[in-house]
């Protein structure tokens, strides 16, 4: 865990004044990245960039202090260390309702979730407690994105409305962008434009400042479920319920190519930051990765037992991503490895509608149809992995754990957690350098 000085254990039972009344002090689990970031900043002065003289992290509690943020050289070597399988907190609104979208603020201080009721809820990023709730839209929220310059947030809803927000949650603009549900939004690499896609079968390219519809990209035969702007070119990728993945030239509005790799609705497309890889997740339970230099699929990730519902590249590790599925499972994948490198089979009771990495890459937030928003972090060295989420992946005396949760136990066992046996398992993958 990034938070090396996480305050665990029972605090003294004293009452505190919260401004209105005396309350019992509540111990909150905190995942604080500051100390580990500090450690990294201090150490990198004398550590070689190649990480040769960095000592490997040993699989015991004492080595926790050596855990540094994923961006650190010694961590970026091995993406598996960033598999966030340790459950930290489950945040739920009082009137529960499905949470359709979640997004970290760019500085990582809080998580914004968008609910079916159209409300934004802000959760504290360190202790994960409730901060505020506001009625953002009057229809179901579908998508939340931040501009690359971190100044603007856009949200889209079921009725086709797009709203502009400042980072202080001040609503500046609202306009009707589509006739039907907006499924996804994506900013261009320059932030001058953004793209929206909708159930009305179209993708639209908008001028951000003038709020002008610049182009309507027509060609999909059914609901367009996702759109993503290329990290450095005016190229759009969109996936649709007609199971086609289309790549568009955002400038001319021309359909460059159509990829027929999936056999069911494509729910997410995500460009890798390297600009070459395009990841697509579909309801046919597959995630595929295309290299656009060849326009060819080069790997299919099989493992999900139900429809894939969400996907996100890790912000630091180039070849690492997480995916959520309809059955509430979260899987972690490394490009080049056919099996998931880690998984939490029963992270949620129902579909994981959205997931988002903390900008530091040490926390994964997942929002689900079961009304919960959950926070997951990295396993610490020497972690016993005995909480209920890890349990299904652990062999016990009887061999298998209870039938309900352990449905996928047999398959996942041995590669699920990266606690105690995690850092040793790294040897098998040839990452001995960390030792």
């Amino acid at each position, binding site marked *: 865990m990034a938070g090396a000085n996480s305050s665990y254990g029972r605090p003294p039972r004293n009452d505190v004044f919260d401004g209105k009344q005396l309350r019992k002090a509540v111990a909150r689990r905190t995942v604080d990245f500051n100390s580990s970031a500090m450690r990294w900043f201090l150490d990198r002065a004398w550590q070689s960039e190649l990480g040769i003289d960095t000592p490997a992290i040993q699989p015991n509690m004492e080595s926790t202090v050596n855990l540094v943020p994923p961006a650190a050289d010694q961590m970026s070597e091995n993406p598996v260390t960033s598999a966030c399988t340790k459950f930290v907190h489950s945040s739920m609104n009082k009137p529960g309702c499905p949470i359709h979208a979640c997004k970290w603020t760019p500085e990582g201080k809080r998580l914004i979730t968008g609910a079916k009721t159209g409300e934004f809820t802000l959760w504290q990023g360190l202790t994960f407690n409730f901060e505020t709730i506001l009625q953002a839209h009057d229809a179901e929220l579908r998508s939340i994105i931040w501009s690359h310059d971190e100044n603007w947030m856009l949200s889209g809803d079921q009725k086709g409305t797009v709203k502009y927000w400042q980072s202080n949650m001040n609503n500046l603009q609202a306009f009707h962008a589509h*006739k039907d549900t907006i499924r996804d939004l994506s900013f261009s690499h320059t932030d001058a434009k953004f793209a929206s896609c909708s*159930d009305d*079968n179209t993708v639209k390219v908008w001028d951000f400042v003038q709020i002008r519809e610049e182009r309507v990209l027509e060609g999909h035969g059914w609901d367009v479920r996702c759109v993503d702007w290329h990290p450095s070119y005016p190229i759009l990728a969109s996936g649709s*319920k*007609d199971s086609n993945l289309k790549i568009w030239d955002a400038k001319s509005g021309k359909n460059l190519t159509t990829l027929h790799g999936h056999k*069911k609705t494509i729910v997410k497309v995500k460009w890798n930051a390297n600009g070459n890889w395009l990841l697509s997740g579909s309801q046919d339970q597959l995630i595929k990765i295309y290299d656009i230099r060849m326009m060819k699929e080069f790997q299919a990730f*099989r493992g999900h037992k139900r429809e894939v519902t969400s996907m996100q590249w890790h912000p630091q590790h180039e070849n690492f991503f997480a995916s959520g599925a309809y059955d509430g499972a979260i899987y972690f994948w490394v490009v080049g490895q056919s099996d998931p490198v880690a998984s939490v089979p029963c992270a949620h009771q129902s579909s994981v509608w959205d997931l988002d990495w903390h900008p530091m890459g040490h926390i994964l937030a997942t929002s689900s149809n079961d009304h919960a928003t959950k926070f997951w972090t990295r396993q610490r060295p020497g972690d016993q992995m005995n909480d209920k989420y890890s349990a299904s992946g652990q062999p016990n005396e009887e061999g298998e754990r209870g039938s309900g949760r352990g449905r996928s136990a047999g398959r996942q066992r041995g590669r699920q957690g990266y606690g105690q046996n995690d850092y040793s398992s790294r040897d098998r993958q040839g990452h001995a350098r960390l030792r």
Partner: protein
Amino acid sequence: MNVSAENEMQIMPIGAGNEVGRSCCILKFMGKTVMFDCGVHPAYSGESSLPFFDSIEPEEIDLVLITHYHLDHAAGLPFLMERTNFNPKARVFMTQPTRAIYKALLSDFVRVSRNAPGEESLYTEEDVDKTMSRIEVVDYHAEVNVNGIKFRPFYAAHVLGGAMFMVEIAGVRILYTGDYSREEDRHLKAAEIPPFRPDVLIIESTYGVQEHEGRRLRERRFTDRVARVVRQGGRVLLPVFALGRAQELLLILDEFWEANPDLQNIPIYYASAIAQRCMPVYQTYINMMNDNVRRRFEISNPFDFKYVKNIRGINHFEDDGPCVFMASPGMLQNGLSRELFERWCTSKQNGLVLSGYSVEGTLAKHVLTEPDTIPRLDGRHVKRACSVDYITFAAHADFKETRMFIQDTTPTHCILVHGEKNNMARLRGALETIHNKSEGGKKLDIHSPLNCGTVKLKFKSELNARAINVLSQNVAHDTVKPGTRVSGLLIQQDFAYTLVRPPDLPQYTTLKLTHIDQHQVLPISKPFITLATQLKTTFRDIDYDDKKEIIRMANGGVIIELKERNSVKMSWESGYASDLLTEAVAAMILSKSPHEGDAPISEILRIGRKLLMARFGPVRRVKGSPHLVRLVIDLSKVGIDMLTGEVECTDEKLRERVRLAYKRIQAAMFPIPDIMCECCRAS
């Protein structure tokens, strides 16, 4: 003449309401019941796959119309006709190719479901044969009238013989589309827009708001895929449903092979016994296909494929190199396609191309997730390495076609059937937006009923009656005011009313005037001339011919003539007035002459006493009053008044017995009461 009335039309899907499969829709209007389609659900088996027949009364059905031969539209028919109390007078119609293929397909369906373990088949092959004799064929565009229900089939594409039915009852038109496609493909014409506007449109919604990729594009992807696999030395497996799209795929492949000489040494196999049996049907009904096929037919039969080889089974097949193999069933449940798939799936070179809809739970559905291993029928798992592609060729209308079809037919009411719940709701929402929520949209009343959910539509029918020749000639039409009395015969024919004068019946209607001549021979006990005199005193216009002994009455309408042996013959033409007249005359003929008088009363009393004696023993007369008698029965004294029938006796039971007995004696003596019997007249 106008009388307005509201009539309720009920439309109830008992299958395919918010689901795909077991299409069956009931229409009730003006006392008529029409059933559209009668299919089974492919995902269920046994009786649970049938439409909900228990929510209707099969004996009330007047007409069954089957749109096409697919199992989910036709396979419930033998069960309905043979295993329920289906109205024996109901008529069943389908187009000629549908009927021809229906038999072959259903016989196969029975055989397959009989082989399924633990399942009793819904009906037997004999049942299918029996239905064949009752199924009538109808040509496209031919109007048929079944007891006032007029209907007309139109081209629906989808498959050969596919029809949509325009039904007209009492001036209200209902169009049932069945499965249709507005896209012309390689052998079928696109569905027609009927030339007249329906009031109610019952339309399929399989694809909801989806729009198809262009047909050319899909074809190219398909041929590219097939070509790539065979060029790298692999085998292509195309699991297909035996009839329908398979023929289209064969046409595409045959054409592609023709254009690519390098592929021509690679064989295309097609193994389907039913398809081979039904191929003559395809070759016969070329005239129902589109111009493309017909043009080619002038040179050669396009269904005589040049590069496609039909083979009987896997035993006749030498698996030695690249080939394209088309086999059924389409969802890899069992049979040949499964066998070949299990054999070929382990090699990376081979390819599987799925082209149809696959139902949840079948291997075809599972294979779409590109699993690492697949279960074999023998329970073992084998590696899957072959490529899997899914290119849909289903010939159903997409959103664009549905939208245009509704726009072109301009119905008032639209009922969605044959679509998965979610798709249907989306389509309904989209149509609501187009028609009812946006400006300039033509208002449309849209329903998407659940199974057994009834849609009730009110139709205000103006009851019009045409009056022909009823007004007298010299009355000008414009002088007819409300309240003017007219009279004539009101004829109802197929919900249309006509007012005519009776003599004009044969001229203006199909009804015929019929005369009934009646003859009656009656006994007469008085001289004929007496009868004539009697009649003359009672009726006017009596014409008595004493030579021929004929009486003519009512201007010759009734003729009475004397026959031999004291009888007369009365002849007349049946009618209200003459029937009344002859009844009265008959009474006069039968009555006795007043001069003749009745039989002496002493004689009657004598016979009565004799009969009483025979019944009860010795009878004593009372002096002075001849009608009183006394007798002793079972030691009780009984007195009878033979004129009134009164009985005196202390024992009540006995009195009653004697009274009854005497009543019967009187009845025996005077069998015709009132007219002849004085005593009865008295009582």
